[in-house]
């Protein structure tokens, strides 16, 4: 968008520039009597000179001589495709005379002469018989420079009552067989004439200079880009094309060397580089499209090398027009090919580029016509401006591609984010499902544990009691005893399911809370001593129930057998274990015989088995007055 508006701006600038030069300002003539006069015809006289050209001023125009005839301006004789060498042909002077007359006011403002171009020979200008300009040495620089000659005040004779007559004679010496051209001429007040000449200079020289330098800067930028990303050879081609274009237009920037070998080689280089500009431009277009057309590329390169060789200064004759015509033919062919590519499977960028290339070719053909003097020398060389259009199209393509790449990256990012979110949601969902399954599994295990527990414990106790009751073998206190034990056990099961956060202290505290009253009622004094213990990660409801049963069993044993008066329960940490120590001051028992014994031993062995099932152990030590049961449990379990 930016680029488009910029291009639009440049185009309107160009159009304005052209209009201002090509439609000069008759309207700008002030209402006074001194006006700019535009000469579209002149009197011509051709004077043969001979094999050598005399110094300027030696030969002068004679208006009184016969042989003057009227010709229309602009005047141009077309050049052939190849100009043969004419070094030995005789010279002839072509005089063009025009008369500028001011009313007899007795005074004259400063005057000047201007013409867009004089081509073909070293121009000289005489005004009222005085030689004002002779461009013998640097005449080849006339190809693109306007003719501008200020007329000195004393060259104009003024007297009241007599018309002010200014006779301007432009002389162009030309060898026989050579062509020359002369644009229309303007005579008038020096200020206005100078302004016209300046505008012409701007269009011919300054404009191309600016465009060439702009393109060179873009080329440097492109080169820098390629330097960082060597794989993108299109940008190198762009840089090389801009460099070749700069070389092509070097004659806009520097003064030409004087005629001679250096001069010839200079011109050869600038003309030959036109071909390289084309080659590089087309290669760029292909690369940019990410396609290789090896045949077309080889043909292009071959033709360029060939024309470069054929136009070497060593080869006689001047094939300039032929060379550029060939260039035009090749570029029409290649551009047609690119157009075909663009229409078939080209991108928007390539189509814009193709349009710019066609405009370029049109203007290039115009320039060839101007060069070969087939059209008025008043026109200006337009290819530099057209090339700006092509490079603008390149820039547009690069920008579009760049912003397209950014958009693509953004889109990829967005889709990545979306996929990530989807994956996360999926994972969360899976996790949730897994958790649900785990929970179900845990519930199932819990239920199985409870079932087993009730089956083996309470269920069998109730069942056997029921049988006894039905047989009338169980008295009431015994029934109450059985039921009490069942309720106690049920209570243990309930307590093992309470949320205690793997805290052994709270677990045993619950037991104490339950049994406190009963111990008290039995006349036992309870000493309760707890340290802070770390949480036991393995202490789930199943393990908790085992711990509760072990400790309850130990207490029940004391209640039933020990005849103790005090019982002390202590919880402490011992290294990698926690210990629950139950001490009483009862009768005690012989540990060895109890463990191996049949009846009472079963209870103790049962305790040990349960503790070992938890990854711990139970120690017994007993003497009268001090019996100790130590339950040792690991802090961490595998």
């Amino acid at each position, binding site marked *: 968008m930016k680029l488009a508006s910029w291009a639009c701006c440049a185009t309107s600038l160009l159009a304005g520039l052209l209009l201002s030069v090509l439609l000069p300002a008759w309207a700008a003539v002030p209402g006074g009597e001194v006006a700019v006069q535009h000469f579209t015809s002149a009197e011509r006289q051709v004077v043969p000179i001979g094999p050598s050209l005399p110094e300027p001023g030696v030969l002068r125009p004679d208006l009184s001589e016969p042989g003057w005839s009227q010709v229309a301006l602009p005047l141009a004789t077309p050049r052939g495709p190849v100009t043969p060498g004419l070094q030995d042909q005789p010279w002839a002077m072509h005089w063009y005379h025009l008369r500028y007359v001011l009313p007899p006011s007795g005074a004259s403002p400063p005057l000047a002469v201007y013409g867009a171009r004089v081509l073909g020979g070293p121009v000289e200008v005489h005004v009222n018989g005085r030689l004002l300009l002779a461009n013998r040495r640097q005449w080849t620089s006339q190809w693109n420079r306007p003719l501008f000659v200020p007329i000195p005040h004393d060259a104009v004779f003024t007297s009241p009552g007599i018309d002010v007559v200014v006779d301007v004679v432009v002389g162009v010496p030309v060898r026989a067989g050579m062509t020359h051209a002369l644009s229309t001429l303007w005579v008038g007040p020096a200020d206005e004439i100078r302004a016209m000449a300046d505008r012409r200079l701007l269009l011919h020289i300054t404009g191309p200079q600016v465009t060439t330098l702009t393109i060179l800067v873009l080329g440097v930028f492109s080169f820098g880009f390629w330097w960082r990303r060597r794989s993108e050879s299109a940008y190198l081609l762009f840089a090389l094309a801009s460099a070749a274009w700069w070389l092509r237009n070097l004659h806009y920037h520097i003064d030409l060397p004087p005629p001679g070998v250096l001069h010839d080689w200079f011109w050869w280089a600038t003309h030959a580089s036109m071909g390289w500009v084309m080659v590089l431009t087309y290669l760029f277009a292909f690369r940019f499209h990410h396609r290789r057309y090896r045949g077309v590329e080889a043909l292009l390169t071959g033709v360029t090398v060939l024309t470069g060789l054929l136009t070497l200064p060593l080869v006689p004759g001047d094939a300039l027009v032929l060379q550029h015509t060939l260039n035009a033919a090749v570029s029409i062919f290649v551009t047609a090919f690119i157009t075909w590519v663009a229409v078939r499977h080209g991108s928007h960028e390539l189509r814009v580029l193709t349009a710019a290339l066609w405009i370029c070719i049109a203007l290039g053909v115009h320039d060839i016509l101007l060069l070969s003097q087939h059209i008025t020398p008043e026109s200006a060389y337009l290819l530099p401006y057209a090339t700006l259009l092509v490079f603008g199209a390149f820039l547009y393509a690069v920008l579009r591609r760049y912003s397209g790449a950014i958009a693509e990256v953004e889109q990829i990012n967005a889709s990545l984010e979306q996929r990530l979110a989807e994956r996360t949601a999926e994972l969360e969902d899976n996790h949730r499902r897994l958790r649900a399954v785990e929970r179900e599994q845990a519930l199932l295990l819990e239920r199985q544990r409870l079932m087993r527990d009730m089956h083996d414990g309470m269920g069998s106790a109730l069942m056997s009691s029921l049988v006894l009751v039905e047989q009338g073998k169980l008295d009431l206190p015994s029934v109450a005893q059985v039921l009490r034990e069942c309720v106690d056990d*049920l*209570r243990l099961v*309930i307590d093992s399911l309470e*949320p*205690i956060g793997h805290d052994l*202290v*709270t677990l045993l*505290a619950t037991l104490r809370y339950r049994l406190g009253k009963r111990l008290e009622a039995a006349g036992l004094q309870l000493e*309760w001593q707890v340290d802070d213990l770390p949480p036991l990660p393995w202490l789930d409801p199943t393990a908790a129930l085992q711990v509760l049963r072990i400790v309850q069993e130990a207490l029940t044993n004391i209640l039933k057998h020990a005849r103790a008066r005090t019982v002390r329960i202590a919880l402490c940490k011992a290294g990698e274990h926690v210990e629950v120590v139950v001490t009483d001051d009862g009768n005690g028992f012989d540990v060895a015989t109890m463990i191996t014994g049949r009846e009472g031993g079963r209870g103790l062995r049962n305790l040990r088995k349960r503790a070992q099932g938890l990854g711990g152990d139970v120690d017994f030590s007993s003497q009268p007055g001090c019996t100790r049961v130590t339950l040792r449990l690991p802090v961490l379990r595998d």
Partner: protein
Amino acid sequence: MWQLSVAVVEDDPKFRQAFAQAIESAPDLKLAGAAADGSAGLALLKTTRPDVLLVDLGLPDIGGIELIRYCAAQLPECDVMVVTVFGDEHHVVGSLEAGATGYLLKDTLPEDIAEQIRTLHAGGSPISPVIARQLLTRLAPAASQAPPAEGAPVLSERELAVLTLATKGFTYEEIAQMMSVSKHTVMTYVKRSYRKLQVNSKSEAVYEARKLGLLRD
């Protein structure tokens, strides 16, 4: 002689009778009435305005929790004692949140029932280690967890200390000794903690309702 009036709401006739007998046999207690379901219990509360309510949670019509809420709102002087089989955390904490301050196990001996009613009315709420642990979790969450809802009550240092010791299984007497206060004071701390749990559950409900847009600020 001034007597403590006690209302009983219990759908199981045997237990209802057992409670009624335990109350009537105590000279300082008076049975205000016994109801078998929630609506009768509500009527009983309205007409008699007892000092203590014994209520079972599993009533056939209106839930026991509803009755406790009514009592907490309309009869602030009435102490509510919930009757449970096991005194397990699930049942008791729900009742505490509704406004109960004590609980009674169904297998408690008759003479102990009267004693516990007296103690409760005197300000002595019982507490089990698991219940104490629940109170700590609700009212004094660890710093790493979410901060309490706005307006939620916070435990005082002493209350915190009492509850912490209770989780370790120490009795009121032991706690009182450790903290060098009377047993009565310890019980007061526990009762206050119960009240805070009730307030907390209310403010949590309000907070949740606000979040759901059911209530305006």
